[in-house]
């Protein structure tokens, strides 16, 4: 028997596999396919204060071993998430969930996190700092250590649950941003979000995505994600949730060797709806193959 249980800030997960925000909706589509209670947890769609339609379509572009999305945080807004989505979700998922929160100002982040903190089902609050900061010229909060720390402090001041800051990889020095968040009180770090990318249609000679650019993710970004998780996990003491291109049990183990305590699976769910189920089922066998009896023994193992 192998042990797949891992612990994030006091929250014990049956296994480290967590569908990533924006690729699993609020769970119902997948609950029609399999019992999603086998998941370690799941991170629901990025939620903002106001309802958002998101960006114009086309929002999706095919890439070699990956995809670009420019969904633009489409969500029904925090009120409806609390009054409609969470009660529905409760019926198909009985474990604590990760609440993914976005905002366009520090106040908005604090407002949404304070509200979601009171929801019993929420185990961890994951704060996505990749959105543009409307008060500071549209630069993403996640591209400056100061701005990321400011959001972290504001959210920590109004919440009781563990707060994980989800970082953007579109920066020159991810370590300094992760450390600034840790110093500001973050209980953990999630990374990576999507990488900025673009495709151009040869027939129309125009960008495929209506918004021109979007977030590139999927298999292709896995090596970049492993590298960034490794760098951040080495620099901070808080737990790291690793993601970016994970699509197999082997990838989960590699991400954990880089320093992740848990692992999220994003784009893979969209093209392989059973991706997380397959990974969870494969994990014990793959652990055995590599002589691993307890996943906790390998976290950050590549650094030793």
């Amino acid at each position, binding site marked *: 028997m192998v042990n797949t249980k891992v612990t994030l800030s006091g929250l014990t997960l049956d296994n480290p596999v967590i569908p990533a925000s924006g690729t699993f*909706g609020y769970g119902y589509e997948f609950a029609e396919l399999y019992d999603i209670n086998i998941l370690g947890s799941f991170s629901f769609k990025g939620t903002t204060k106001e309802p958002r339609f998101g960006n114009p*379509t086309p*929002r*999706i572009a*095919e890439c070699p071993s990956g995809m670009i999305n420019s969904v633009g945080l489409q969500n029904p807004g925090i009120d409806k998430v609390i009054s409609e989505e969470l009660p529905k979700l409760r019926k198909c998922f009985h474990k604590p969930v990760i609440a993914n929160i976005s905002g366009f100002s520090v106040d908005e982040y604090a407002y949404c996190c304070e509200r979601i903190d009171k929801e019993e089902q929420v185990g961890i609050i994951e704060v996505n700092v990749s959105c543009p900061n409307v008060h500071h010229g549209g630069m993403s909060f996640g591209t400056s250590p100061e701005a990321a720390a400011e959001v972290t402090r504001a959210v920590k001041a109004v919440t009781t649950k563990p707060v994980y800051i989800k970082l953007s990889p579109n920066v020159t020095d991810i370590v300094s941003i992760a450390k600034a968040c840790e110093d500001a009180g973050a209980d953990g770090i999630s990374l990576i979000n999507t990488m900025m990318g673009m495709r151009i249609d040869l027939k129309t000679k125009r960008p495929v995505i209506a918004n021109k650019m979007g977030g590139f993710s999927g298999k292709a970004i896995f090596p970049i994600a492993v590298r960034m998780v490794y760098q951040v996990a080495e620099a901070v003491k808080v737990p790291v949730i690793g993601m970016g291109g994970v699509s197999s049990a082997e990838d989960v183990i590699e991400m954990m060797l880089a320093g992740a305590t848990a692992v999220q699976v994003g784009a893979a769910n969209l093209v392989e709806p059973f991706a997380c189920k397959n990974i969870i089922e494969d994990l014990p066998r793959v652990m055995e193959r590599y002589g691993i009896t307890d996943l906790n023994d390998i976290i950050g193992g590549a650094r030793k």
Partner: protein
Amino acid sequence: MKQSIYTIKINQHLTDQVLKMVLAGDTSAITAPGQFINIKLDGFFLRRPISVCDYDEKTITILYKIVGKGTEYLSTLPAGKTLDILTGLGNGYDTAKSGQKPLLIGGGVGVPPMYRLAKDLLAEGKKPSVILGFNTKEEAFYIEEFKALGIPVHVATADGSLGTKGFVTDVVKTMENYTYFYTCGPEPMLKALSDVTVTSGQLSFEERMGCGFGACMGCSCETKYGTKRICKDGPVLEKEEIKW
């Protein structure tokens, strides 16, 4: 929705660019005409959405046009090869609203879903008529198959090489006493049809898709009844709800 493995039985050209593929496997997830399937192709990240043209207990028929690398690759696959496919996607057409004499209008690769729809309407004792639009005679397909259903078939080609010269809308304008309409085709055609038709109807839309089953919000559109996902709440929308 179901995920399953299908075996290619037939993959043959109907025209230079359009092929018919018959796939053998589990068809139990398909519940309405106008639904689509999402096909995994080796070497491509995203699946490719294609409408169901017809199905029975053991097979699914699709008609697809080569427009890019994915459909080109699909066209090279021999009988016997297997494919990983998601089936039973989308809402499909609601035949309950058709009245006795519905009009079915397909343009280009919007023609395929009209075939099963016509069969279902006939099975319900209704009297559908169909209008098929193509650019040229060389690009036309499935006309004989529709005729074999024993229903009136009107053809329009943009260059006049077959049937009425012009667009499907030119034929629609000459039609009388239809009770409802159903259509699938390029968006400009859908818009034009929404303007010239005198009844309500259902229109099937396309959008670039991430998942095809409602998880990613990649395919959203705004309707008068709120935000809808083309893949899950569509692809079929009602004329009255569409914001052009």
